[in-house]
């Protein structure tokens, strides 16, 4: 041992290169550089550009000038913008609640001992693996004013006389796009919560049933509290996805009728690209950031390791 360490000594304090090799900090920076460049180049630049555009009057084909908060001031008085904010909030809140309740329910069912369990689990994932545009087109057909299979079935059953105007009536259109979004979003919630349920040891459920808990109380006092950390993650993602939803609306209603289903994302696109007002479109998109930030902060505090998850002594 001693002899080997003495022979290694001169080598270590030798060339600049070998000293560099031994410096943890320098190596750390070198190893992180590619990731840092990637992060700045591909994530921050587009975001920064978007924010910048929001402060300009850029149009398609014409570089804009800095106009300060003019775009935002204009949006403040824009009824359609406020309608899209309202729509987005309603859409997100209702769809997220439905996705949570139905997803949790489905996860609980799939967690039971079922015959053909893996088959059902695969089926549940289907709405999620189908490309959004494809499922949106399918819903477009399902909601068709004349050929809707829903209307047809209800008429055959004698429950209604005329086809339902799914996408033509403001209220119906809102409910329809929410239903489509829920259908698409349930698998993510259900499968994630199912994974969470499977981390809860069976012996806890057994202990609770010996302790006299009914199935409902087992859910209320054991399953649900142990699932909350995962619920917080899953629902944060679900809210972010729903709030920024674009494809479904764009295929089904393009924001109509009379802007009743315009979300902030679709309005931003419409003003920015077909409408050519890039600056204004960017400003609408930037207005989504405070909402998204709020959702992330909410989950950040919700996600903080709970007291019972912390290890070690106090």
């Amino acid at each position, binding site marked *: 041992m001693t002899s080997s360490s003495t022979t290694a000594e001169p080598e270590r304090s030798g060339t600049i290169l070998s000293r560099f090799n031994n410096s943890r900090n320098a190596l750390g920076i070198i190893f992180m550089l590619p990731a840092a460049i990637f992060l700045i180049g591909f994530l921050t630049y587009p975001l920064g550009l978007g924010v910048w555009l929001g402060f300009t009057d850029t149009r398609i084909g014409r570089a804009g000038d800095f106009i300060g908060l003019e775009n935002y001031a204009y949006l403040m008085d824009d009824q359609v913008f406020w309608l899209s904010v309202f729509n987005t909030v309603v859409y997100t809140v209702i769809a997220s609640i439905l996705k949570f309740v139905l997803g949790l329910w489905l996860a609980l069912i799939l967690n039971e001992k079922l015959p053909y369990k893996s088959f059902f689990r695969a089926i549940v994932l289907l709405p999620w693996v189908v490309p959004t545009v494809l499922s949106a087109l399918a819903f477009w057909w399902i909601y068709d004013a004349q050929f809707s299979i829903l209307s047809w079935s209800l008429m055959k059953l004698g429950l209604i006389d005329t086809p339902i105007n799914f996408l033509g009536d403001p209220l119906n259109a809102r409910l329809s796009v929410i239903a489509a979004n829920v259908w698409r979003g349930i698998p993510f919630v259900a499968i994630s919560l199912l994974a969470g349920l499977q981390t809860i040891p069976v012996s806890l459920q057994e202990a609770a049933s010996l*302790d006299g808990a009914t199935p409902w109380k087992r859910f209320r006092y054991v399953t649900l509290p142990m699932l909350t950390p995962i619920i917080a993650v899953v629902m944060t993602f679900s809210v972010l996805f729903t709030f920024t939803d674009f494809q479904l609306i764009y295929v089904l209603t393009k924001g109509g009728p009379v802007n009743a289903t315009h979300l902030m994302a679709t309005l931003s696109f419409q003003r920015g690209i077909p409408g050519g007002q890039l600056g204004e479109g960017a400003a609408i998109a930037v207005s989504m950031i405070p909402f998204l930030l709020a959702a992330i902060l909410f989950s950040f505090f919700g996600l903080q390791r709970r007291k019972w998850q912390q290890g070690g002594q106090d």
Partner: protein
Amino acid sequence: MAPVEFVKVRKSFGATPIIKGVDIDIADGEFVILVGPSGCGKSTLLRMLAGLENITAGEIRIGGRVVNKMPPKERDIAMVFQNYALYPHMTVAENMGFSLLMNGIPKSGIEAKVRPAAEILGLTNLLDRYPRQLSGGQRQRVAMGRAIVRNPQVFLFDEPLSNLDAKLRVQMRVEIKELHQRLKTTTVYVTHDQIEAMTMADKIVVMHDGIVEQVGAPLDLYDRPNNLFVAGFIGSPAMNMIDGTISPSDPKVFLTGDGTALPLAKPVDAANGKALVYGLRPEHVRFDPNGIPATVVVTEPTGAETLVIARLGGSDLTLVFHERILVNPGDTLRIAINEAAVHVFDRATGQRL
């Protein structure tokens, strides 16, 4: 408190029989230990008693009532799981009071029951901690506390000490036994460790491969094992088993494979040449200058006693001497056998003759 009876109980998982007809009577207030090697069905039997597994055939009675179809929460049973199964999101106090909460007892009533139980188990200072913040031994105590606050008809323990270190295990053994003497609740305790069984039980049930091999008080099993399995399982170091036959000329002499003659207390009635086993506990030998010669292979002095592995009659025997002896490997040791304590078993059936 209640007696527990298993009557011809069977259990199969799918087509595989796991419990193959078990009869056990457990008296009110008795401390019974189910012991047997891993995989013999002890936990399964205990879980059937708790209502966590259904019963394929037979009957289980608690306090005279058949409970085959009764859900766990109605059986008034408390169980300590091997992994303790503490609720991680509840404090020690909440864990201990959970069953009371489930049974609709008001907060003040829960507090009044949790306090004394915590005192008995030395948990008073830990009531606000979460399970994560406890050591293994403390978690074990909380699991027991959760069981005792309910004052149930029956306590079930499934290998409660197997996750503890050796020293703590000895200490908890004493505490569990004291607890039983204080509460006098019928207890069914599962372990694979025969020392735990011997030191704690009023009655031991030795299980093997889904059947009960023998039921009895610890020393009864030690002194009169019914068969080779019980003889080999109970006792540490284990009983020496030497293959051989009865001498054709003298029914009080056992001949080992290499022709060494070993003494028997009384004549054994066995057909000529029938394969038998000579069972000798390590401590049932003493020095005797005129005794049978054995060659020392290894000595293991432990202080209180000396363990000697010696070659005799073609097999290696473990011998225990209470005096300190100085022998070296290769030495010849002359021993006399306490033939009154010897057991002879039928090799084919395993039964004691």
